[in-house]
């Protein structure tokens, strides 16, 4: 098995939104970041992968199976944004409940993770901060021999220190080549730190699914005036955006463009800028 998750042609229609033929994969041992603006289809995709919603077309293969049974579900760790567990529970009670739900539950691992994350065992979860709740959800996800972690907006609303802690935990998990992570976020800087691949969803469609390093190292942004923009070979333009005083143009091969247009300013580009250009700009011809 080369891929922990393969999504092919996933389609789901709602009254005012359509997930349209979404396809990408999560290779074993990798971290895939799912990016896109709010309402782009990230959570819908994750919900379909987890079987929370029924797909209309396409296929989803999780850890080698199209219809994940309980054995497969044991190997999937899931972290949702917001609350995950009853707030009156202490982590001790949660441990007892999970022990009776997961056959592969590792109490020792869970208690060690609680200690590592400085989470109390006797306090009710309602007294936890948002960051502590998120760490608890991750501790649960890591305590039943998960092979695939799926996190939906797990870092949103958290301060940079907690986010960094969580990213470290995820990086640590992904050190094992049999472990994989699919993480959705609109905080692209987080994904720049940890992701191997970036999948960008916009208006229910995958715009691109690429190696992060390829995006960061090869893509570039040309910042130029109207005359320079007109002189550009239109086939070099992926997307462009007219700003107040300049044109911003996304190109796929920064080095080649520097050779082709030596007098033009070509900068490296962040994932945030790529996303903004795709969402707010116009496609090249």
């Amino acid at each position, binding site marked *: 098995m080369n891929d922990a998750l393969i999504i092919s042609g996933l389609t789901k229609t709602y009254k005012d939104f359509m997930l349209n033929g979404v396809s990408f994969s999560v290779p074993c041992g990798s971290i895939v970041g799912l990016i896109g603006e709010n309402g782009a289809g990230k959570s819908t995709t994750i919900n379909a992968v987890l079987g929370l919603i029924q797909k209309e077309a396409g296929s989803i293969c999780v850890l080698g199976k199209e219809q994940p049974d*309980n054995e497969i579900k044991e190997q999937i760790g*899931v972290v*949702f944004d917001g*609350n995950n*567990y009853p707030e*009156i529970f202490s982590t001790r009670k949660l441990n007892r409940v999970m022990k009776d*739900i997961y056959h592969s539950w590792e109490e020792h691992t869970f208690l060690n993770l609680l200690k590592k994350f400085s989470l109390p065992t006797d306090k009710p979860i309602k007294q936890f901060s948002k960051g502590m709740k998120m760490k608890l959800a991750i501790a649960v996800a890591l305590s039943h021999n998960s092979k695939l972690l799926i996190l939906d907006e797990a870092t949103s609303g958290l301060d940079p220190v907690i986010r960094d802690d969580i990213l470290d935990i995820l990086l640590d998990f992904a050190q094992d080549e049999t472990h994989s992570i699919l993480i959705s976020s609109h905080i692209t800087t987080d994904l720049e730190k940890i992701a191997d691949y970036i999948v960008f969803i916009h208006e229910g469609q995958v715009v691109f699914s690429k190696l992060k390093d390829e995006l960061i190292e090869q893509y570039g942004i040309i910042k130029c005036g109207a005359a320079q923009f007109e002189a550009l070979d239109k086939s070099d333009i992926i997307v462009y955006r007219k700003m107040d005083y300049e044109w911003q143009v996304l190109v796929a091969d920064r080095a080649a463009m520097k050779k082709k247009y030596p007098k033009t300013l070509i900068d490296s580009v962040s994932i945030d800028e790529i996303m903004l250009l795709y969402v707010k700009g116009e496609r090249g011809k």
Partner: protein
Amino acid sequence: MKGLLLKDYYLIKSVLYIILVVFAVVGIGMSFLTSTWVLTVIATVMLGMISVTTINMDRNSGWKKVSLVLPVSRTAVLDCKYILYLLLSGIGLLLGVILGVVASIIKGQIDYQSMMLFVGISIAMALFSGSMTIPLTFLLSEEKSMLALIIAYPLSAFVFVGAALLIDNKLLACGLVTIVGVLLYSISWLISRKQIINKDMT
């Protein structure tokens, strides 16, 4: 399923003292105003209702979504609520009968016919309302499920009163309504199991 029931046990334990206080106040008051056996109806319905309450607690805490990605089937998550409802209603009925007997002994009169009648009413009310509230609370949004909760109990009472008006023999009417209640609860359980498999739950 053991883990799911354990989770509900912990949840119920946290709200049980409130239920017991309400039960004591309402039950004692009602038993003085009407028959002592009314305690069986109150206890059965109130304890059964806790099962439905746990569905809303699951929804608000985020557990409902989490439970659907756990290594248990969707039907097991639903079954847990139906089983819990029967268990709690049964405990409520038993508690109600014991309290009714004690109250009758204190009052110096045990009317077995009334006892049978109220036991029948209790079972029928519990099963009728449960067959509506569990699926609607589980499968519908919070707003719609609130409406179901409001409607279920008066509707159950209405069915019972209707049967009592149509059939002179109250015990017979009670027995028939109880049988219908058992059927309705079973049908509700079966239909909900089929519905939940393909329903979008987010």
